[in-house]
């Protein structure tokens, strides 16, 4: 294992920001932690980097216990949300900083920082000052700086959070391939599910300081197990199971494309609204018995206020347990 935490707990006063978290990330793996703000995911990263004191538990990197090791001696690179570039140093000096601390000779530092700048696509930026760069460029410098000392684990704290949407997608793909090219083990923290899905091999869903679920994105998508996790990964059609399979208690999520409208459908509902998105009509249908509302993806339009009949593919319905929270 490249990174292991065991029963990690951090509390701020009486608030328990991280509760008893045990995670394993294997070498070269891209791991994401996803959760709403305040769920404790950034605190996790800061604890792993050694920036904050933990209350209990252990942290090991490459099989070596790091629990009591100060931040500057941990083989961990942290990329900050606002990048934290040193404003008084050039881009190259920023990138070379970690190497300088490691006692690498100035010649070698120079070569390596140019190499990294070229890796992140910033050839020719070496002598610029960070304040003269755009947000996306700053993000790349921060990535290069984090990677320069070749840390065993790269931690990324909402690294795209302060960029606009169009830039986010391309930088995410790029960041992902750069990390892959250097074979880095990484842990990516975000509140955005599409970012987490696009980035990771495996992910954890965090809420209220606890890890609710760990697994590959498709695994979690198909078996979220709990209502909260299902909602967190973007399932929106929550209905009582009873509606689809009469007599069964519990809740289920219905994928929008698991519904099919046709004349002899078993279920009836009234169309609330309809919009066109990604090649299909998304129709919101209120069930006739008033128990729930479903979004379904259909090839044909539906008129608001009209009554429709439809069927649900029972095999594709995801059964979950209701949350106590």
């Amino acid at each position, binding site marked *: 294992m490249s990174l292991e935490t065991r029963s990690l707990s951090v509390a701020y006063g009486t608030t328990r920001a991280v509760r008893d978290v045990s995670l394993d990330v294997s070498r070269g793996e891209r791991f994401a932690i996803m959760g709403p703000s305040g769920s404790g995911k950034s605190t996790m990263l800061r604890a792993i980097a050694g920036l904050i004191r933990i209350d209990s538990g252990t942290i090991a990197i490459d099989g070596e216990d790091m629990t009591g090791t100060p931040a500057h*001696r941990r083989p961990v690179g942290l990329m*900050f949300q606002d990048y934290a570039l040193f404003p008084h140093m050039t881009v190259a000096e920023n990138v070379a900083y970690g190497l300088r601390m490691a006692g690498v000779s100035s010649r070698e530092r120079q070569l390596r920082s140019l190499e990294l700048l070229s890796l992140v696509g910033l050839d020719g930026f070496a002598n610029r000052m960070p304040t003269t760069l755009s947000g996306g460029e700053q993000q790349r410098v921060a990535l290069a700086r984090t990677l320069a000392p070749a840390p065993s684990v790269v931690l990324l704290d909402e690294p795209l959070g302060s960029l606009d949407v169009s830039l986010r997608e391309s930088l995410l793909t790029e960041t992902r391939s750069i990390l892959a090219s250097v074979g880095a083990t990484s842990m990516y923290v975000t509140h955005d599910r599409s970012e987490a899905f696009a980035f990771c091999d495996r992910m954890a869903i965090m809420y209220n300081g606890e890890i609710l679920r760990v697994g590959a994105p498709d695994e979690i998508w198909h078996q979220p197990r709990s209502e909260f996790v299902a909602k967190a990964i973007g399932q929106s059609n929550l209905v009582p199971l009873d509606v689809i399979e009469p007599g069964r208690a519990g809740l289920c999520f219905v994928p929008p494309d698991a519904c099919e409208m046709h004349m002899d459908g078993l279920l009836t509902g009234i169309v609330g609204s309809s919009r066109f998105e990604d090649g299909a009509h998304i129709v919101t249908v209120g069930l006739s018995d008033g128990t729930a509302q479903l979004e379904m993806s259909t090839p044909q339009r539906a008129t608001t206020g009209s009554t429709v009949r439809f069927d649900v593919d029972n095999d594709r319905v995801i059964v979950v347990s209701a949350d106590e929270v």
Partner: protein
Amino acid sequence: MDRDRSLITRSPFGHLGTGALVVIPTLFLAYFFVYPVVAITVRGLTPEGVFNPAVLLDVLSSRTLQGVAAFTLWQAVLSTLLTVAVGLPAAWVFARFDFPGKSVMRAATLVPFVLPTLVVGTAFLALIGPKGVTDIDLTGTLWVILIAHVFYNYAIVVRGVGAYWERIDPALEDAARSLGASRLRTFRTVTLPLLKPAIASTSALVFLFSFTSFGVVLLLGDINHSTIEVEIWRQTTAYLRLDIASTLAILQLIGVGVILMMYGRYQRRTTIQFAHGTIRPPRPATAADRIAVGAVLATTAFLLGLPLVILIGRSLVNPQGGIGFANYSNLFSLPAMSASFVDPIDAIVNSLRFALFATVIAVLIGVLASAALSYSQKRTARVFDLFVMLPLGTSAVTIGFGFLVALGWPIDLRTSVMLIPIAHALVAIPFMVRTTNPSMGSVQHRLREAAATLGATPARAWWTIDLRLVSRAIAVGAAFAFAISMGEFGATSFITRPDSPTIPIAIFRLLGRPGSTPFGAALAMSVLLMVITGVAVFAIDVLRTPQAGDL
């Protein structure tokens, strides 16, 4: 909330180290500041070795001294009101508009503030004194003192309030306008309330400087127009009444303490940052804006420029008539005629040497104090801050006088040459702390964390990040210290020795002589001093970064 759990402490030295940082400045200030002040107090209250409030009662009941105290307060109140009234429009123009030559203008506003009081006094003598270019002689009136104080403190209001004004998001004012408020109404209901802490803290500072004004009042006032500060000096040097001088110093210290506390309170409020970056303000667009900006700038140029232009012009008028450099060449010929004239080269060399030492001391103590301030706990910092700022309010005269009274023990330092640079450093340390502390405090915690994750030890992170980011602020503080030392007169007048006079002392001696030749030489000397401090001031503005603090 992150901070309580943070393993990356703000201080690179741990808690013990921060303690050590506090110790050195504390010891320095304790011996060179607190001890002399206490000695003055003891001396005032125990004239013959036993406690005797008689002198205190005498002073309090003396009609003359009551008059001095009343005048000191009265002129300080008027000076403050007038300075704020004159300075606010300029603060607005500098904060809200961009115009060609703005940075040079802004730098120029600082010139009078760092000009030696004696130069300012001499400039006004050249303008409206008995030997001045106008036929009006305003010396010995309240007016001349008020005008000189406005001239002197204008920069504090323009820069202090202006810097704060700049950070108020213009969108707030736009919002008020769109909600139906007129410009005046917007100013009254939005801008002014937001500016209040800045106006209050700068007013306190202007009041403080006017309250303890020395050189200007000494040159331009008379017996009926005198401050407590001048009275302390007069009682000591003219009447040798150390007991009365001590008592006056105590009374003044109390007043200063009260003002400083108010200043500290408002100053803290002005450190709240507004959430917006520095947006470059627009050029004045409408005709009304252009007229307003033009008028304000013209007034500023006139107010600040006139006395200096007159000073320079008058220094080029030869004593026997005609235009030329006779006043400057007289500087060199006068000492040959009488031993009581100071050799100008000597004075310049002395001043430069003292200023160099004073700057080194002020930088060392100031940076340590400033580091201690930004790395210690909030409550400790607040007390320590007040302690470090005390010398700012304690008049220079009190410091000089205190040195004379106290520093005979444990070793007699009163004849040491180092006494003058130490006194100058004391005056400069508060400025040093004020310029470096904000930027030390504003070094983002994130950067230190980033350095740590990149393998920097705490000490190394401080050295490579904090110190580098603060170095320009330190340079600004050093330039301030240098300028202050070059022009310092109040304290120096007490502890100067006949064989090592400074430039201000030389000017003062020249002004005390009858005839137009020494007066002309004083003008020439003042111009020299103005040039030297002027260079230091422009260095300050060139070096200043957005993070560096103002007063």
